[in-house]
């Protein structure tokens, strides 16, 4: 087998050195009763060509050559060629967690740059080296707020991504962390401020909102912050469309920012792997979960980087850790770092403006369900069978909302990005009108 670098004679020499006549003897210490006494019921190994063909056949059973107007937390953006060039380097692809700083300065330096860029993007003081994804960053942020405030309740907006709220509920159930939801304004699609005021109390640790929210509406972070802080709660602001930060004011009034970076050159890949982030103010630095890279010097006085504040983490603090997380999404975060470098200050802005233009071109041709300001996603009422018609024209329409919001069962969530073409948008406008 091409991944096993031993010849038969080498195996023989090694078995001799181990004092074993056969390889089976290496397992003779295992109790008979636990041994598998038959071959695994799996087909024999196949060649490279056959493997490629297998996955090509699977890919052919998926959507190919369709224009897509799906967003809802996963976005279609161009992936600069440089991203795969960089992450395919063996030194990045096949290296381990940078516990040994002397031989991991490549990884450590890029993570430090990543942490910096996330701070610049979000307006926070410190960012971690990534969480599994946006959906798991939410309960981590909630748990941070609970630890920091000593209070137990969490309030989350209904306009936060529905699947993210489901994940929060799973984590919260056994933490003694009751979660309640507050609604959205039926007209604007933004936060129902009255409902928030009604539900928040002195026991609330965190108020969690998303901007742009699941409906694509831009929220007033200031308003939410004022209410949360007045009651001694922390404000957690979540984003799922990272490109929006190219043009939107960063949520400086937030105490914790959680987010999903999939938009930054991370392939949609049917749901993962992605990279989430947690960023926060200086005062909460010791409550941050996950890995952190810090700047220091080596014994010769040169600048160097290393993992730091490890005493927060599971391998040291065990059951008292800030989280159980071990892995970070280093390679995925590197994709985002390269993306942010390639686009840079001007590019991310220009990209966001293009997204705005495309979505507003389409949005202006349709009757939108909500009146609030939107970035690159919006909700429209859709006639019966609209998506079926669009599929025949090789277009995947927006996400029908009935599965998550029964009150919006006649609506769909449309997204247009810099990849959406005018002709396709004209077709969508025609069919959905």
């Amino acid at each position: 087998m091409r991944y096993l670098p031993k010849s038969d004679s080498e195996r023989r020499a090694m078995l001799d050195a181990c004092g074993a006549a056969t390889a089976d003897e290496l397992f003779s210490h295992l109790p008979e009763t636990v041994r598998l006494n038959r071959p695994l019921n799996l087909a024999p190994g196949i060649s490279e060509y056959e493997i490629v063909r297998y996955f090509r056949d699977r890919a052919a059973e998926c959507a190919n050559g369709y224009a897509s107007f799906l967003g809802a937390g996963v976005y279609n953006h161009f992936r600069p060629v440089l991203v795969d060039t960089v992450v395919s380097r063996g030194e990045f692809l096949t290296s381990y967690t940078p516990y040994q700083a002397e031989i991991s300065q490549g990884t450590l330096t890029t993570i430090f740059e990543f942490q910096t860029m996330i701070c610049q993007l979000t307006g926070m003081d410190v960012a971690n080296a990534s969480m599994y994804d946006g959906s798991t960053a939410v309960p981590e942020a909630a748990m941070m707020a609970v630890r920091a405030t000593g209070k137990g309740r969490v309030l989350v907006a209904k306009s936060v991504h529905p699947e993210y709220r489901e994940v929060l509920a799973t984590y919260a159930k056994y933490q003694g962390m009751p979660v309640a939801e507050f609604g959205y304004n039926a007209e604007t699609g933004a936060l129902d401020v009255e409902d928030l005021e009604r539900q928040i109390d002195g026991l609330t640790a965190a108020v969690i909102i998303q901007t742009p929210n699941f409906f694509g509406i831009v929220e007033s972070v200031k308003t939410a912050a004022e209410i949360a802080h007045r009651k001694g709660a922390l404000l957690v602001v979540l984003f799922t469309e990272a490109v929006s930060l190219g043009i939107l004011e960063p949520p400086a009034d937030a105490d914790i920012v959680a987010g999903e970076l999939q938009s930054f050159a991370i392939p949609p890949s049917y749901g993962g792997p992605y990279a989430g982030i947690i960023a926060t103010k200086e005062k909460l630095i010791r409550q941050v979960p996950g890995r952190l890279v810090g700047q220091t010097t080596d014994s010769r006085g040169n600048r160097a980087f290393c993992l730091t504040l490890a005493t927060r983490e599971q391998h040291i603090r065990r059951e008292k850790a800030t989280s159980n997380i071990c892995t970070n999404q280093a390679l995925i975060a590197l994709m985002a770092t390269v993306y942010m470098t390639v686009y840079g200050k001007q590019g991310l802005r220009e990209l966001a403006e293009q997204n705005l233009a495309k979505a507003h071109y389409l949005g202006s041709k349709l009757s939108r369900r909500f009146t609030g300001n939107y970035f690159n996603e919006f909700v429209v009422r859709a006639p019966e069978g609209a998506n079926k018609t669009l599929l025949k024209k090789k277009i995947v329409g927006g996400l029908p909302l009935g599965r998550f919001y029964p009150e919006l069962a006649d609506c769909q969530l449309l997204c247009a990005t810099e990849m959406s073409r005018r002709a396709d948008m004209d077709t969508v406008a025609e069919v959905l009108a």
Partner: protein
Amino acid sequence: MIKKVTPHISQNEALIFERSSPGKKAYQLPELDVPPVDPADALGACNVRREIEGFPEVSEVEAIRHFTRLSTWNYAIDYGMYPLGSCTMKYNPRINEVVARTEGLAWAHPYQPEALAQGCLGIMAALEAALAEITGMDAVTLQPAAGAHGELTGILLIRALLEKRGNARKKILIPDSAHGTNPATAAIAGYAVENIKSSDTGGVDLAALEQLVDKDVAALMVTNPNTLGVFENNIAAVSEILHRKGAMLYMDGANMNALVGIARPGDFGVDVMHLNLHKTFSTPHGGGGPGAGPVAVKKVLEPFLPTPRLKRSGKKWAFDYKRPRSIGRVKAYYGNFGVLVRALAYILAHGGPGLRNATVDAVLNAVYIRKALEPYFDLPYSSPNMHEVVFSDDRQSKLGVRTGDIAKRLIDYGFHPYTVSFPLIVHGALMIEPTETEGKLELDQFIDAMISIAKEIETDPEMVKNAPYSTRTSRVDETTAARKPVLRWKPA
């Protein structure tokens, strides 16, 4: 005499922000085919940011040079062995990278209609079936994003079942040899942690277990083989004790590389376990992630698995959301699909017989290292080891040199260090796992290096204590990094 490596000049490189200069570009967007929109009009003037202060501005050439230069400062599997215990740093097959990038798979949106995602669903179904066969379990969920995430899922499953039976119970037993994620996970799942001391052969002490398992114990979390690389010979008895008292057996699958094709956890009494695809199944570590942590369960736990689950619907695959007993979601969408593709490619490449051969070679490599180094390093547990072996620095620490120092000196010999000071039940541990993808030459060079260092310690311990010498960066000041954390770049 260090034969494997020679110092070589490598490029210096500043941080990307220090290379930046206003107006430099590495991108070009197409011309807009629709009218531009005034951001202030569309978003509200107060919502528009002025600029992203400090963000880099470099050309494509500088970008590629930056990341390439940085990459040369890393060690990697592509360079040589990582003997890290329980990390299973095996070769990351490149075919995995190619197939994961197949367009119809890489660009699949999780919400595209199921009729247009049959290929993705088919891949997930094939992987679920393969992992069930490998583990001897009845059902698999691919939703968890990593090992620790899988652990949390597994413990939540146990809790859900016990709750249904009337009492979720209060604590989880965890061996003192366990990885830190185990107790951290138990705490997040709302359980108290009780440590169970290992026996003097490093396994689960049956008498202690019999004593400790009471009506308040929900489960024992065990790693098998354990973190000493030793198989838990009493595992069937362990399972029996737990089941008799209404508790469950969770297995941390981090060490599956010793078992694939040889023994199946489902056959020896495990109720629920997680797998680390980025360990046993060769998906790349990428500097610290992504991973994937599928969870495999016995039938009794199947109803509680995260939603949605794959099901066959006529000739097609579909997701089943009607699962009233499910613990809910542990992650948005369906799992780290891109990682699942890579793992399936690995399984297809090896096939059934191939997977077993890989396990045999993994164990052979570790036993070979043990035999060669036993005369030089203390072996605290004499039981037969499987895919990894743990020594202690007892002999060397008498001369003032600890496991951490030996690890740093190993770097000068051209290797990444082994796992230092873990498991905690061994004083000054050296935890070594070669994996099956190391050949005899690399192993012999590793053995020679370790023996050479052992000899260096006898004649010149101070020299070893101040290693490494040949790296770009010498030992870093971790104390100042923790006392005065600087976690981002700031302009002067």
